């Protein structure tokens, strides 16, 4: 008995202590200190996701930062697995041990910002320690949490696109997607392609939130409302699923089973990169990879990126997915963290070294420099130009609430899959999906 009590005390004291310390602000927040007269110094850690290329390009920026700020040491820590990054971040946050500068994304920001794992950056922005003057205001605004405070400064914009192998389409004698093309036009066009080529024209997985978001936005809805509640309705979800299943059933897209198989593969292994299908929905920042893979296998094909379909208003369904930098609540070297964030966002040589590896750079000055640089491939520039086009279109702002990963990635996938293998259940499954979504986000 005695030993058990002892064990309990030993176990619980630190646990309870750690868990309750999360929300409270223990030390005075250094972020409110006046703009430092002393140069920043000390150590900070920077956590981000990405594979080898990302790590190399990030390290290049860090090296430049070290030259500019010799008294600061930035320790990078990266994982190639996007999902693992969030698991790591969550566990670290639970232990009050997030990296000083954790990379965040606007889609998943709410889960961390609304729960107090991140430090507000408003004072740093106001004092100029973090200079956001070259980033469009609407983009900066998407880094705000539910309480209106700034928790993340976006540095890279990713977005969905329709990738098209224009060479194949040209050979089939068909036109390319015109400006403001609709979902209906797309379905007909894919039908023509598959009829002429005798093979599926596109490979949709059907269950991803990327396309659902575009569908919702072109049908007057959004994934989330601005108060963080679920914005999309069961009817819209059902309509989207019926559209996707129409593509699959008519042979315009590959089968549902093939969709399950391909969903796990990296972009280099997808049919469009292998020259086996001429179109695909995929984030535009992969265009360089698709192009270089195709160039190796069947040279002479050109990939172009188009916006997502529109409904009748002509505004495409695209939303911007913004990756950015935050400062964790448990960071104990805020001046250095702020200096690093500022450098990452604004330094021109850094931007050229990073080459917009994680979404098009949101800094308009640097974007211009990148477009003019010869070190950036033509394929990359296509993505950047599409971004410029989209930003000029005044897309309605997008909001994201909590449980994005749970509802719109995990649940959505399994819901669509169960429907695609049991077609009669679209409406009831959509209703259940929305019900579960509301419960998850209401927490």
């Amino acid at each position, binding site marked *: 008995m005695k030993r058990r009590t002892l064990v309990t005390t030993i176990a*619980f004291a630190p646990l309870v202590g750690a868990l309750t310390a999360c929300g409270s602000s223990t030390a005075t927040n250094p972020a409110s200190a006046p703009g430092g007269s002393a140069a920043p110094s000390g150590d900070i850690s920077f956590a981000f996701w990405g594979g080898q290329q990302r790590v190399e390009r990030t390290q290049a920026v860090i090296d430049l930062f070290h030259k500019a700020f010799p008294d600061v040491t930035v320790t990078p820590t990266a994982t190639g697995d996007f999902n693992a990054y969030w698991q790591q971040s969550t566990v670290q946050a639970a232990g009050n041990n997030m990296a000083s500068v954790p990379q965040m994304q606007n889609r998943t920001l709410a889960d961390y910002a609304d729960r107090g794992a991140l430090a507000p950056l408003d004072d740093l922005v106001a004092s100029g320690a973090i200079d956001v003057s070259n980033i469009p205001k609407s983009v900066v605004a998407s880094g705000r949490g539910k309480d209106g405070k700034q928790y993340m400064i976006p540095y890279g914009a990713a977005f969905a696109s329709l990738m098209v192998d224009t060479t194949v389409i040209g050979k089939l004698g068909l036109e390319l997607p015109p400006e403001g093309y609709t979902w209906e036009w797309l379905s007909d066009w894919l039908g023509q392609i598959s009829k002429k080529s005798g093979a599926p024209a596109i490979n949709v997985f059907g269950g991803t939130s990327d396309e659902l978001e575009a569908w919702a936005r072109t049908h007057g809805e959004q994934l989330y409302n601005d108060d963080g509640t679920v914005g999309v309705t069961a009817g819209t979800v059902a309509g989207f699923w019926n559209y996707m299943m129409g593509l699959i059933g008519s042979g315009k897209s590959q089968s549902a089973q093939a969709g399950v198989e391909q969903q796990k*593969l990296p972009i280099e292994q997808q049919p469009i990169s292998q020259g086996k299908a001429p179109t695909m929905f995929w984030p535009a920042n992969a265009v360089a990879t698709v192009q270089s893979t195709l160039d190796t296998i069947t040279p002479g094909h050109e990939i172009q990126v188009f916006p997502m379909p529109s409904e009748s208003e002509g505004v495409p369904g695209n939303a911007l997915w913004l990756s950015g930098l935050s400062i964790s609540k448990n960071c104990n070297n805020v001046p250095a963290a702020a200096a690093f964030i500022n450098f990452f966002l604004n330094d021109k040589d850094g931007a050229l070294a990073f080459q917009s590896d994680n979404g098009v750079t949101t800094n308009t000055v640097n974007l211009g420099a990148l477009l003019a640089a010869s070190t950036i491939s033509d394929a990359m520039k296509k993505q950047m130009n599409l971004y410029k086009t989209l930003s000029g279109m005044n897309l309605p702002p997008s909001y994201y609430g909590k449980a994005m990963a749970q509802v719109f990635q995990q649940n959505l996938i*399994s819901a669509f899959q*169960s429907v*695609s293998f049991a077609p009669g259940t679209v409406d009831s499954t959509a209703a259940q999906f929305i019900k579960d979504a509301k419960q998850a986000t209401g927490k």
Partner: protein
Amino acid sequence: MTVSAAAETPTVDVGAARAKVLQRRRRRSSFHAYLFLAPWFLGLILIVGGPMIASLALSFTRYDLLSPPVFVGLDNYIAIFTADPKFVKSVSATTLYTILAVPGILIISLLLALFLNRGMRGTGVYRTLFYIPYLLGGSVAISILWLQVWGQHGMFNQVLSWFGVTGQSWIGSPNTALYTVAILAIWTFGSTMVIFLAGLRQIPQTYYEAAEIDGAGKWQQFWAITFPNLTPIIFFNGLLTLVNALQSFTPAYVISGGTGSPASSLLLYTVYLYQQGFVNFSMGYASAMGWILVLALAVVAGLLFWSSKYWVFYGEDA
């Protein structure tokens, strides 16, 4: 043995002295045993015990990892059993997976261990080759490799086509995906086989020699010597394979990308538990699921241990 000078009759004294010696020996034995167990005690107190108790406590809370836990009593447990279709799905998927994987692993491991124990030339090489799948089993590469075998355009369908049969996508179809994961578990049988081999090696040669001299044939030798002496290892492998199967996480996670796809057919119990804990920010719920699993496993293990009285023969009892 000393005889007390004050003894009245020799037998009583001898008994008392022997009892005293045994009692001293037992106490010393306990103390010695605790010395041997010291590392484990330390581990229990410092590393395992605390987190175990904490996770039990968390199962009675709502805990989203980033805010302090909130006590909710039995809510999690009630919700699990009354309001969670995915829970039911994960239990049935895990049960089916276990029924497929455990006998498969045990039978193949035992057969191949017996086969390789014969001392034919190249045994060492074959043993290593059979072991290689186990070395790769948890790798990130497996998701792509398994697709190459069981996908629509995979090797299995290629072989079927040689016989004129057109195969479907085995790994992409909810009806068949779980079977491919069970086969993956069986494919990585190498470790179980090696444990059987170790067990076979531990049976003293002298037993076989004696039986040979008595004229016993191969089959008789197997049932009279090999099998009985192997039962502790069969029990060990059986218990652990069963526990591992019911707790299986990595194969289903890697192959389905953590989503249990297609259509939750690969949503094994711990995969769902992981989802609840780390994707859905419901660590209290996940902890409750974990302890329900512990209870189920305890019942299963308890039954196995009880049955072991009847069929497991320990050399120490020889």
